[in-house]
């Protein structure tokens, strides 16, 4: 039987990245900066949002939240008191897996998200330290929340996740006095894996450090700037050099 070898040389996640680009076009149109918020289950993503988003609109930053969960609307219900747009996205009827959001799931939820009513969309991913790091959803920045009950060595065990993030929030620092936990060692491990990460220590419970997190959100580049930056790196469609490369010899 004759067999033919076919050269492919294609990133297996290209299909996801193509849909992520389509999401980006939608974010561009509405001038929305998008943040992918990730953590292990129970690190405090929702509590951080509860604590930090209130009143941001009055300070000039309109934030909306897309809540990814395997099932239920517990998190979206908790955020409803903030009077900001919150949309629930369940992954149990999703595309392939349940343990993370991918570009296609986010795409399917976008018609329900009032993008024109917000400057920043925070996509709260499913709690998981592995899979969410693999799948881009069209975001501009990635935040990871890790808590002081998780162990100082987590960055070394999950480098894929810690390397993917621009900001790492160390949460639950109010518990430090009760724990044998070396928060400086955690921060050193984070920086060993991702030297470029910004690290903020917070207690979403007491509010310590939350102001710094709000300031980080407020300092996010607005969408047109973020989009222009992204085009510099990835969009070669309108690039003169690329045109020359494809021109017939």
């Amino acid at each position: 039987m004759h067999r033919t070898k076919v050269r492919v040389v294609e990133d297996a996640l290209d299909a996801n990245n193509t849909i992520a680009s389509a999401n980006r076009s939608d974010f561009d149109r509405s001038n929305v900066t998008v943040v992918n918020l990730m953590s292990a289950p129970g690190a405090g993503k929702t509590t951080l949002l509860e604590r930090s988003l209130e009143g941001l609109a009055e300070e000039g930053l309109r934030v909306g939240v897309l809540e990814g969960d395997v099932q239920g609307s517990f998190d979206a219900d908790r955020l409803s008191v903030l009077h900001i747009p919150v949309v629930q996205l369940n992954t149990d009827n999703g595309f392939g897996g349940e343990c993370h959001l991918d570009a296609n799931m986010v795409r399917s939820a976008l018609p329900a998200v009032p993008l024109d009513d917000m400057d920043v969309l925070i996509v709260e991913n499913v709690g998981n330290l592995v899979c969410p790091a693999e799948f881009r959803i069209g975001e501009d920045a990635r935040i990871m929340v890790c808590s002081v009950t998780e162990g100082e060595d987590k960055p070394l065990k999950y480098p894929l996740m810690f390397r993917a993030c621009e900001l790492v929030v160390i949460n639950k620092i109010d518990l430090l006095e009760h724990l044998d936990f070396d928060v400086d060692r955690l921060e050193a491990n984070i920086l060993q894996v991702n030297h470029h990460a910004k690290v903020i220590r917070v207690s979403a419970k007491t509010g310590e450090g939350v102001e710094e997190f709000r300031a980080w959100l407020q300092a996010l580049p607005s969408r047109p700037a973020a989009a222009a930056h992204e085009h510099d790196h990835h969009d070669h469609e309108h690039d003169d050099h690329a045109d020359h490369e494809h021109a017939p010899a």
Partner: protein
Amino acid sequence: MHEFDLSSAIVQTVNKHADGRKVTHITLQVGRLRQVVKDTLLFYLAIVGRDTPCEGATLEIIDVPAVLVCNNCQNEWEIEIPAFICGTCGPGAVEVKTGEEFMVESIEVEDEEDAACTAPR
């Protein structure tokens, strides 16, 4: 645990390039930094590939080492543990050179005409 979705991504990519032909072999480049468990990937690939042109295909995984480069001193080295720091210059100018690949390099497909010729008469 991400191997299930990675398997789906492989099957999707392979089937696109197979263009309806039966796939007998897949060669995949996997960087060490992707944290992929090979046995788990093989297990899921057999499930996800069922009833698609990928069914029964063998998978060859080419391990790509995690190699870092320091853009300050141009030093290159391979890492076995996740420490992204140059011994001379610190972490500031360190970049990943290889190790983040997750790429379908090639596939082997059965040529349809030949397959027809070898069919029992």
